[in-house]
């Protein structure tokens, strides 16, 4: 079963951090990703730049709206994603509580519904473990 660990933390986090703190954070994320990879459960990982770099696009109002900034201004903003393939929610939880971002933000666990593989949409609950 595929789960997304969605990381949210207060923004703008990076600009207020010292170089050492950023380094420590990167080291923690590196250790975490290596541990996931070694366990064979990591499908992908991506940490995003801050919401200051975001651009939002919408046609909701009937015409193209391009907005400089995030679609919603919230205290904690979406900051990164780890896609895992684990047997069940308990295993996803075990990994989520070991995520460095859980110490300074929130890790949301969302099961995958469908994903696009080899030209077709496939159920996210299908085991794809090697």
């Amino acid at each position: 079963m595929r789960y997304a660990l969605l990381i949210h933390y207060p923004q703008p986090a990076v600009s207020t951090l010292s170089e050492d703190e950023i380094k420590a954070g990167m080291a923690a994320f590196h250790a975490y990703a290596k541990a996931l990879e070694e366990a064979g459960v990591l499908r992908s990982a991506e940490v995003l730049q801050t919401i200051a770099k975001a651009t939002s696009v919408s046609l909701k109002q009937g015409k193209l709206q391009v907005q400089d900034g995030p679609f919603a201004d919230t205290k904690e903003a979406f900051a990164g994603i780890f896609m895992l393939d684990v047997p069940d929610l308990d295993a996803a939880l075990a990994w989520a509580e070991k995520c460095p971002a859980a110490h300074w933000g929130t890790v949301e666990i969302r099961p995958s519904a469908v994903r696009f593989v080899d030209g077709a949409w496939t159920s996210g609950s299908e085991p794809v473990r090697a």
Partner: protein
Amino acid sequence: MDQRVGTGSGVTQDAAARAEELARDAYGRLLAILAARDGDIESAEDCLAEAFAQALRTWPETGVPNSPEAWLLTVARNRGHDLRRSAAHRLNEPFENLEQTGALSVVPELDPDAIPDRRLALLFVCAHPAIDPAARTPLMLQAVLGFEADQIGRAFAIPATAMAQRLVRAKRRIRDAKIPFVVPDRDQMPARLTPVLEAIYGAYAIDFPLVAGTVPRDSLAGEAHYLATMLAELLPEEAEALGLAALISLSLARHPARGTVDEFVPLDEQDPSLWSPELIASGEQYLRRARDLDRMGRFQIEAAIQSVHCARATSGETDWRALLTLHTALLSLAPTLGVRVAHAAAVGRVEGPDAGLEALDAIGDESAPRFQPAWATRAHLLAAAGRAGEAALAYERAISLTTNGAVRRYLERRCAGLVGETRPNAASPITCPGGRLPS
């Protein structure tokens, strides 16, 4: 110790080395005295830091004073007075308050033995019921051992800024709520001692999830040992304080045999010749002293469990009957999930794997299905019962809940060795980060 001889960089190095040594040994003693004055730990820390900085500047020139602790205390106190005096000027307050404390007098050299040890009061302040439990252990590491927030943050894998905020909040609370720097009296002692013991134990068995793939700084176990033995010396009549010192000494004794970051060696398979005889001997001594006081408690029972395991170093065997008795006693005092799983493993050893599985099924805790040690123990018990198929499923479940690579590889080895396995005594508790079972 005479450091006044010699010139040049040798003296500088000596002075620096001496200041560093003092920072380790005397920091908590000095801070306890400075902070007790008005309950302001932050300002005491600043004054003490300035005293150490001044020592580093002047000692290379003047040599290390005969009573460096008294020197540091005097300089720090004077610095405190300067700060208060300027504050007093601003507030236009009379000077009497300062005179009354008698601390305006500059004592150049004091007898270090005459410096009272107020660290006990400081420990009770750090673990006061009004302080956030999550801040207690870090606060002790900072106030008693002089750790910086970023060092503590690293040790607990928490960002330095978050840790610093937590510590500042706790210190302001101590100052603003006027938490007294006193040792609780006999009536209050039992209730107030428990959080102190738990906070010290918290530095040994970090009881919150660490970032997967990171290892807590090993020497934090050494700091926990330091704090526990210090507390036992300051409270020699408290059986549980002695029990905690015994528990940490006996557990620490087995550290060299626990494997590496890459390889997990379970207790059963540890080579007892790697265990530290010195730490075992001192742990046993604490345990004997605790027993003589005849007041049983959780930490003494846990220490006694460690003691039975350590006895294998001399007897070559593990007395599982004694362990079952102790685990049963612990169960009645502290029925946590970890204790219940360890008890079931002991039942499995003594009364057979089926009885162990029955004890495991009886736990009925709602978080048991997510508790890795419960699944690892179930897998071992099923394997011991010869139910290889079910054991494999339990191992698979335990492995999916294991974020520690070394423990996972160990479980995978055990799982791979299942085919046709019918060893009758293969059950043993498994440790994992957050599992809080003895390893």
